[in-house]
């Protein structure tokens, strides 16, 4: 019993230490100079009366870059507060969970778009993307320009149906419609090489993604994602409403042409396989 208690305390201590180490540097600072951006005035509207989603958006609550900076209010780093809008983990089918858990840390790393420079795809580009996204909203169409890897997407928003024979694409086939002030984008036909999140969450050809976009105020864009994948998940997964903030910065070029990381991790993978005698 004594040993179990000590073991429990040791577990708690290790988890606490890992949690503290995982906090952004700013979370451990007492003085913050970069704070949560105020919501601003009402959202602009397009000529057709729908909200204008145009702008350069950053995946944080600061309206400016927060990585690599000191003095950032931890709230300004966040896209949502898990205490207010908790996000359930995905519920995997046993075979899918076993497949994910069988990946070594190096294999997991090699699967990440941020390492292998493959397009993130939808919905990962809205769930795990530390860089800016430029939206150009016009009546009937939404253009998304992703800074990361120079990816782009053009989504019709006139309520048209999916095409009869869509081909698998990294961004899938997305068609949009307005439900009041919410733009709903329905996505199907995704390339199976993409991951939903960079923790091994793969998907099947049955993946169906629904994106909901709202602009509740001038400075805030809210993106909410629903993932349905009956071949991999036991039930649909819904993201928290994630806040993106308007920035007056500009979008950068990002061609992935000098990827040492991929080579280094592949060497590590080879070493792992050799040590296992495979």
């Amino acid at each position, binding site marked *: 019993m004594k*040993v179990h208690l*000590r*073991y429990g305390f*040791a*577990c708690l*201590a*290790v*988890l606490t230490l*890992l949690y503290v*180490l*995982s906090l952004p*540097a700013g979370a451990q600072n007492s003085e913050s100079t970069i704070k949560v951006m105020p919501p601003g005035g009402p959202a602009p509207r397009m000529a057709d009366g729908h909200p204008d989603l145009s702008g350069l958006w950053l995946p944080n609550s600061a309206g*400016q*870059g927060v*990585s*690599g*900076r*000191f003095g950032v209010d931890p709230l300004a780093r966040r896209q949502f507060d898990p205490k207010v809008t908790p*996000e359930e*983990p*995905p519920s995997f089918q046993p075979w899918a969970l076993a497949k994910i*858990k069988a990946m070594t*840390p*190096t294999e*997991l*790393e090699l699967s*990440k778009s*941020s*390492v292998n*420079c493959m397009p993130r795809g939808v919905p990962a580009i809205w*769930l*795990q993307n*530390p*860089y*800016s996204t430029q939206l150009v909203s016009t009546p009937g169409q939404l253009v998304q320009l992703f*800074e990361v890897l120079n990816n782009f997407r053009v989504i019709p928003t006139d309520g048209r149906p999916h095409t009869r024979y869509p081909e698998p694409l990294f961004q899938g086939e997305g068609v949009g419609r307005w439900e009041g002030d919410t733009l709903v984008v329905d996505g199907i036909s995704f390339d199976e090489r993409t991951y939903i*999140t*960079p*923790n091994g*969450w793969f998907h099947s050809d049955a993946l169906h993604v629904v994106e909901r976009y709202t602009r509740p105020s001038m400075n805030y864009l809210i993106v909410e994602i629903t993932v349905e994948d009956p071949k991999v998940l036991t039930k649909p997964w819904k993201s928290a409403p994630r806040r993106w903030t308007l920035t007056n*910065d500009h979008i*950068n*070029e*990002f*061609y*992935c*042409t*000098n*990827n*040492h*990381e991929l080579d*280094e*991790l592949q*060497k*590590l993978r080879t*070493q792992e396989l050799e040590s296992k005698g495979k």
Partner: protein
Amino acid sequence: MKIARILGAAVITAGLLLPAVPSFAHHSFAAEFDATNCRDFTGTLTKIDWQNPHGYFYMDVKDANGKVESWSFQTYALITLKRAGIERQLFIDNIGKEVWVRGCLARNGRQNYAASGTLKFSDGILRQVGQLQD
């Protein structure tokens, strides 16, 4: 010894528990670099390699015997550096000058290669140029 065993088992348990929580980290520093093998480097900045997805800078570093070795260090993505106000020109202006950097070595044993974390040029300002943890 007993404590070490308990702590070791706790680390393994913690490791098994953590993946159950979805992690949305960009990518893992710990997969490529060894957070338990970090050190301070002081040397002369010799060149930079300013291309995506990461920047690299090179330093001549003297070892304990006075032998000069060239080291390369990985930085954050260039966009991250730029948004943090760390421009390429700052590195260019410091070529040939002394630099201090905290770095962690590659896990695959590659020689003279590390991830950079904090850095100081001759202006003495502490800058975060890379991640030294997940």
